[in-house]
């Protein structure tokens, strides 16, 4: 239940105009960048880091002379892990603080909460987290991974490299695991894995009693097939899960686990000596050996003044997203949302892991997919790195989505039905 605490208190109200009269700066003094990440509540653990990343990036940009001859100004608000409050804060940022762009959200629910507001007010949001896809908004740029940039390559790795023929899809019961698992199920069936060889289980947020589930998964091996676990377990439930795996003596050789929501940050909460060899799929690992990454890590540690802090995938997403936005604004010569959105498409910027990320017409990025093995020190050994994969807003593996396409350059539609050749809707599905 850890996403449920303390919501009503904060959802009650946001004293927008109470404390501040409407600020009307003379136009052109600064360019305002809204940072919409939870600083309190359950998601603060993940999102505070991203807020700091944004402050670091903005500071660095200002040190370089700002943008369009103006300084950047960060407007930080705290939506407090409370979904309705995300919508409220977004409205406040757009109408009261008049920000030119927003960077924010972590959970899909928070994004879905913000979507109607930014589409109504024509805002601009950069969303940095891996998500379930099935969406492309005119006003959002998705710098995290779509399922085909994380989940599908990880499954391919299982099928091709590890020879896994039986799958356990374990997830926390919310939209990202549900949709991802649906896509994976369809994908696996298309790859000839029979439905009865796919075991699916959903657990609540913060689940801690894993013994039976781990036992069930181990028992899947009884029919002589190689079993692999695909984990979309979220947040601190992972701690109990991995502890139970270690206790049950499950090693990566007999029963590998690939996780989509476990990164360097999450691993710092547990002892990883018994987990070495289990896997995670991301577009970035801190251990990536490139000069850009070394510089980024050094800058981060200097900014946060803590040598022990780690970097992770959503931080890289913000890094790419912010720099692309800067370049797009420079190219457009204005911060006007429509002009910047048009200039965003086709922007290229180097990944921290090497290669170039490119913004596609469907507002997703091309990114390489990395698969890492957990090391005893809580970092990952990168054992596989694909060529850049273009992010797919609508998955090809679900029949309803396969016919859909998003293209904001030519078709000007985020949900275009290629069969009927019509735009299903201009606004997003929320």
């Amino acid at each position, binding site marked *: 239940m850890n996403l449920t605490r303390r919501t009503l208190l904060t959802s009650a109200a946001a004293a927008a105009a109470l404390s501040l009269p409407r600020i009307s700066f003379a136009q052109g003094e600064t360019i305002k960048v809204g940072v919409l990440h939870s600083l309190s509540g359950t998601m603060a653990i993940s999102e505070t880091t991203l807020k700091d990343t944004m402050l670091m990036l903005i500071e660095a940009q200002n040190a370089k002379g700002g943008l369009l001859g103006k300084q950047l100004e960060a407007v930080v608000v705290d939506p407090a892990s409370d979904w309705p409050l995300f919508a409220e804060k977004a409205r406040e940022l757009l109408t009261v603080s008049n920000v030119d762009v927003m960077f924010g959200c972590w959970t899909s629910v928070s994004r879905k909460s913000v979507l109607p507001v930014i589409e109504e007010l024509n805002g601009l949001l950069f969303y940095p987290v891996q998500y379930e896809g099935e969406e492309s908004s005119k006003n959002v740029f998705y710098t995290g991974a779509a399922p085909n940039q994380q989940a599908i390559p990880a499954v391919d790795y299982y099928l091709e490299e590890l020879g896994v023929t039986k799958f356990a899809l374990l997830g926390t019961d919310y939209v990202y695991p549900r949709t991802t698992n649906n896509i994976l199920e369809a994908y696996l069936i298309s790859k000839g894995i029979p439905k009865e060889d796919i075991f*699916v289980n959903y657990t609540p947020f913060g689940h801690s009693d894993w013994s039976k589930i781990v036992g069930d998964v181990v028992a899947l091996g009884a029919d002589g097939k*190689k079993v692999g676990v695909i984990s979309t377990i979220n947040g601190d439930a992972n701690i109990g899960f991995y502890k139970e795996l270690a206790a049950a003596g499950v090693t990566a050789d007999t029963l590998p686990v690939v996780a989509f929501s476990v990164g360097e940050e999450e691993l710092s909460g547990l002892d990883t000596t018994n987990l070495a060899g289990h896997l995670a799929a991301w577009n970035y690992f801190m251990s990536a050996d490139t000069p850009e990454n070394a510089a980024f890590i050094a800058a981060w540690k200097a900014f946060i003044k803590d040598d022990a802090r780690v970097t992770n995938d959503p931080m890289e997403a913000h890094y790419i997203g912010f720099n692309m936005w800067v370049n797009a604004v420079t190219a457009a010569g204005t911060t006007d949302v429509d002009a910047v959105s048009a200039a965003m498409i086709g922007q290229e910027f180097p990944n921290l892991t090497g290669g170039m990320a490119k913004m596609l017409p469907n507002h997703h990025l091309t990114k390489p997919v990395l698969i890492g093995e957990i090391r005893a020190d809580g970092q990952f050994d990168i054992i596989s790195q694909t060529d850049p994969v273009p992010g797919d807003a609508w998955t090809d593996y679900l029949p309803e989505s396969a016919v859909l396409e998003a293209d904001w350059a030519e078709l000007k539609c985020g949900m275009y039905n290629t069969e009927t050749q019509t735009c299903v809707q201009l606004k997003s599905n929320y």
Partner: protein
Amino acid sequence: MRLTALIVAATLWLAPALAFAEGQAAQIIAENRDQIEKPSRQTIGPVITALAASGDPMADDILSAWADKRLVIRKADNALLLATPDGDGLSLSALDGTPAGTATKADLTELKPNAGVRGLIAAALVQFTLTDPDPARRAAALTSIARDPTAETLEPLRAAIETETDPALKAQKQRLERFLTLRFDPDPEARVAAIESLGSDTALDVRAALNPLVATTRIAGAGAPQGQNVARSLTIGRDLNDSEAYALLVAANLAPARLTLQEQRDALLANVVNGTIGGIPVAELNTQAARDRAYTALEAAGTVAAAATDDEAKAALAAHRFFDVYVEPDPTVTDAARAALTRIDRKVSVMQAADLGLDALSLAAIFFLAAIGLAITFGVMGVINMAHGEFITMGAYTGFVVQLFVPDYTLSILIALPLAFVVTFGAGVAMERLVIRHLYKRPLETLLATFGISIALQQILKNVFGTQARPLTAPGWLDGSLTFNDVVSISYIRIAIFVLALVFLMFFLYLMKRTRLGLEVRAVTQNPAMAASMGINPDRINMLTFGLGSGIAGIAGVAIGLYAKVTSEMGADYIVQSFMTVVVGGVGNVWGTLAGATMIGSLQKLIEFLNPSNTLAAQTYMILFIILFIQFRPRGIIALRGRAAGD
């Protein structure tokens, strides 16, 4: 799997012929440098085969180093070298074994083959390791064979049994030999014998060996299949439904595919003539029936292909029969395997029930531990303490802090347990003195005031320790699990929690029944005024009782933190459940709490067992059950009677 087979075959046949080929390995590696730097299981096979078969004495070392991620590239000159950890740095040697100096990690790029490639390497190494003098490497070879059994390993394995000196490894080799025999031996008699020798062993690897023998595929045909090992004949409606059966027919090309709605729509759209389709105006095609009529009209006109109607589909289903057939062609083998599996399955279900029971007991112990402190404060004193969860959290954080200062995990836990008690005892006493004492007459307000303390405490903990989960690591001797067999096992940490729960039960009983304090507590609970007139100081007793309940919550926190997570919200996860444990069990009686915890724990596991894919549903139904249960036994399982019941 076939790949491995090839490699092993190649290595076994070619190895002797290519003996004394020094430098071969380095050459093969040089030729395949690209592949070796970025290996894929799909393509690297031949290279590994060639390496293993090169006969180069270094081949074994190179392959082992590669699998251990010790094959490195020196950034300076791009040379491929073997690295061995040496103090802080690494000592390097060339591929022919000559030393090549030392280096630090930063100078080198490690090659990191993935687990699939490592598996191939291990399989290729079997030839070197199956009879290796080092028992650890022999064991590794067996693991490799077990993971990827092939027909070709059967003979070398049989040969290696004789020379094996280690009895454990020998037994393992014999066991593995039977698994390989029952799958790959050309003689059906030998296979059946191997199957029968397994008896009703419930081990996972036995079932993993037997199950592939009885794997089936589903087929459709006009009559009984010829020359195939039929497992069973299927009946539509019972074994498979109409659409599944029809899909089988379509797949076997025995019937045409049925028209989907989408295809019908497309076909109609392709035949719009002057705003009508098949004579029906387009605007009227807003029902399925109208579209069917239009399609039939088009069919009649011959403009679209005729689609199978429902009747035709039904006739096709009736005209065919459906079977499950074994992949394994030999009926004697499948019969033996089926019989063995039936024996095993019967045993496995008993084991599963036992395992479920263990899980339930373990969960019950956790609930009991979380609730026993509450059973004292709420059950005995009637005080609702919503901050109980935060006391659990405080205990866990105490453990975390102790581990910061005491690196030895065993010692730190031994310190943390009493320290957690002291900390939360103090907090409990303070809370009782400052707040609860004033509210004994107002139970509902106690609930609210302690809730205020709960949110304040939780936020303070969050501010101090951060929102991130903190590690609380169990000592090494609690790692792993007590395994009875491959079905029934329980982790040591859970056993420890269970023991702790028992200890507290004993402690509580002793305290309440055998000590002066317990006597006084019972007296104050039953009639404070009378107790006071007998010289008992109710204030002091209340304070101590409350401190005791809180202290036990602290210890529970350490235990819970060991098996799950330590966050500022961990206690809040247990609070509602703990209250329900106490209420369901019956207030004021520790046996009641025990009964409540057992009931809730077993029930939750039972529902999880019945609905394994959704743990959340189990929790929901359990709470619903509790609500209903309380309707019928408002005073819980074990209700106090007489005076003690109060009211």
